[in-house]
């Protein structure tokens, strides 16, 4: 059949030709390229989309409001990873060639693990704000990883501090259950919770939920039998709302449920609505501030908004936005040392990320007062700051219900050092010397 053979030949020809196409031109001379690795599709999209929108909106704001950082505009490109490690690696490979040094924020602990081995060799920075390896806060081993503004150990510690406070300081004999996503992300808090169980005498039960976490009936039946005093939720994507719905279905009081900052966003409780009243979660960022008004005016107002304007100020949007803040501020700090108005290389960006010191004054100047707490990174501390608050869903919106807590260094620091040492031994990484820290 002539048509058939023609179509086949055409398909084969286009295929061959397009693989030989050169990659689209990389960033222009005076532009700093920022890769964006979100997931707008797949089972985790409901949570990935607001984060990505916040990230991109802030980058657009810097260009629109400030004309870039000291005149260097920001160029960015998205590559959808679908929360899968090999697509994440493929996106990394595709986007890393676009500039001589880039800041990657994969929003997935799994992809972070994979990129932690690749990024140092390619001189790319990994900022993993609120996720990633908890031990990467030790900058002497993890030179290129920056889990800024809180790792999972800090987060779990803060939840336990809050629960301890609620129980009047004594958790002996109490039962705590952890319902977690069966993946590196979900397993992260386990060492800290086990350490605290030894210190405080509570009984920890681990209940993994197979990804993507849609089917949880058996887990919650077990919780009903166990009758734990508190349930900690470490889920992502659809798993969060499924957990809350199952909690409703088995009658577990939502007031006794505490979710990590990734399990306490609007998409997780929106369609459960009133039934999720009383559900608590960690939150690190505020929801109102000058920068948000600027975004509404200068980005959404000009029709450049990446998502719906109602999303601005929501929990996950703020997470994405502040991640972008960290990247931009690393760039700005690097420029302060290596030349204002120049495009920064990977090494320079890394130095910038390692020497951030954002105090209240600087944050206010950026319009971030009330949104972010001050942070200051250093060679040994890539986390910068480890505070969070608790917010509770009241049926219609999240309301803050606690003061600021700071994670207990006395417990976490030795764990971080031990884990970093093990990582260095396993992967043949020589820890940095103090001189290297000064560079």
């Amino acid at each position, binding site marked *: 059949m002539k048509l*058939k053979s023609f179509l*086949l030949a055409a398909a084969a020809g*286009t*295929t061959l030709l*397009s*693989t030989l*196409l050169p*990659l689209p031109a990389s960033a222009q001379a005076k532009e700093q390229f920022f890769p964006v690795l*979100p997931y*707008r*599709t797949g089972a985790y*999209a409901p949570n990935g*989309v607001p984060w990505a929108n916040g990230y991109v909106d802030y980058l657009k704001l810097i260009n629109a409001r400030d004309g870039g950082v000291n005149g260097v505009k920001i160029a960015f490109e*998205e*590559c*959808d990873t*679908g929360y*899968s*490690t*090999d697509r994440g*690696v*493929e996106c990394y*490979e*595709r986007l890393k*060639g676009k500039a001589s040094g880039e800041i990657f924020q994969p929003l997935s*602990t*799994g992809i972070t*693990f*994979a990129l*932690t*081995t*690749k990024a140092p060799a390619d001189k790319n920075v990994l900022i993993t704000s609120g996720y990633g*390896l908890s031990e990467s806060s030790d900058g002497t081993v993890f030179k290129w990883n920056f889990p800024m503004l809180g790792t999972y150990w800090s987060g779990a510690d803060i939840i336990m501090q809050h629960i301890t406070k609620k129980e009047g300081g004594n958790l002996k004999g109490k039962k705590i259950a952890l319902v977690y996503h*069966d*993946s*590196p992300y979900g*397993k*992260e808090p*386990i*060492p800290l919770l086990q350490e605290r169980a030894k210190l405080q005498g509570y009984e920890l039960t681990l209940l*993994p939920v*197979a*990804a993507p976490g849609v089917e949880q009936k058996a887990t919650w039946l077990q919780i009903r039998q166990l009758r734990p005093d508190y349930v900690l939720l470490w889920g992502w994507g659809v798993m969060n709302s499924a957990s809350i719905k199952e909690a409703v279905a088995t009658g577990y009081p939502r007031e006794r449920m505490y979710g990590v900052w990734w399990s306490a966003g609007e998409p997780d409780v929106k369609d459960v609505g009133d039934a999720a009243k009383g559900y608590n979660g960690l939150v690190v960022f505020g929801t109102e501030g000058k920068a948000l008004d600027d975004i509404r005016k200068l980005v959404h107002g000009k029709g450049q908004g990446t998502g719906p304007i109602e999303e601005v100020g929501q929990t996950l949007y703020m997470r994405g936005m502040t991640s972008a803040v960290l990247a931009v501020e690393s760039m700005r700090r690097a420029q302060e040392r290596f030349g204002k108005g120049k495009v920064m290389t990977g090494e320079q960006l890394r130095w910038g990320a390692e020497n951030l010191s954002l105090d209240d004054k600087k944050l206010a100047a950026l319009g971030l007062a009330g949104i972010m707490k001050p942070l200051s990174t250093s060679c040994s501390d890539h986390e910068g700051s480890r505070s969070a608050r608790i917010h509770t869903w009241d049926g219609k919106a999240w309301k803050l219900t606690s003061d600021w807590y700071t994670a207990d260094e006395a417990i976490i620091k030795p764990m971080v050092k031990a*884990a970093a040492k093990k990582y260095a031994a*396993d*992967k*043949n990484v020589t820890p940095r010397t103090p001189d290297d820290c000064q560079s």
Partner: protein
Amino acid sequence: MLYRENGQFKTSYRADQQIFPILQDRIAILAIVAVAVVGVPLFASDYLFRAILIPFAILAIAALGLNILVGYCGQISLGTGAFMAVGAYAAYNFTVRIPGMPLLAALLLGGVCATAVGVAFGIPSLRIRGLYLAVATLAAQFFVEWAFLRIKWLTNDSTSGSVAVGSLSVLGVPIDSPVAKYVLCMAILIVFALLAKNLVRSHIGREWMAIRDMDVAAAVIGIRPVYAKLTAFAVSSFIVGVAGALWAFVHLGSWEPAAFGIERSFQLLFMIIIGGLGSIMGSFFGAAFITILPIVLNRTLPAFGDVFGLHVDTALVSHFESMIFGVLIVFFLIVEPHGLARLWSTAKEKLRLWPFPH
């Protein structure tokens, strides 16, 4: 005119039984191998290696293994991802626990472990057939995924379940640049392709094909179904296991069980069906098609959208990729249900007569 075999007389059984009896075929294959191993490294960019060529080579190995099981022996298996995972984690354990283990030895031992698991999960095939077997092999897929998440010893007690391997080297030559990785994968691919081709031409291959065509009749004429089916599972799992170890070590570097999920199994099945069941060449074609297609779509769709003035965001690109992938699968199945390999052999037949029409 060019592809005639007149004048090529064979004077020994050995010459008559070679894989490529026609001289032009031999020249062509040698040229292709030369281009693949020498020419491509000289001209290809880093990105081309990392994103297309290395995945193609490794997935071609896996497709080869799966084709032996599904195409030659007729046992539909959806647990290929699991066997790849077993190969990968086993190789990892050998590398980590035995200091100084050479890379090739670790890969092959990973394959051996995958063989053991493959044979174990192949035992139901003695009783269950067809689509029931396909779904039963999913038990292997989910069980293995769970095992690597739960059994700490298998991941060297890593708290997160995610493992990574450091610098690789073969016989003292470090394998860290994309070119070196590509050459390693190509070498293993060529060796395994030869191995597979000779296996399927031998008596065991004929036993497999007999089982595929009609296993009751095969048993009647004296072929032991147990032996044939289990050897098919064994050989297939070995090749797939080595491919899995390569995928983890060379392509990913750091992985978790989700990298070998059910999507991977489906992807490999797509490869061999589009490429052609029961054909070694088909595995290559299928692997090339499925590896290149998402990247082609990813590049051309935004450009296509720009032509029409639509801003295509990444979510839409993903969805369109999915849709076009599905449409192309169906299109190929309608147009040539026996796969690209059949198209290729039809082309060769036409080439024998060229430039004459008949």
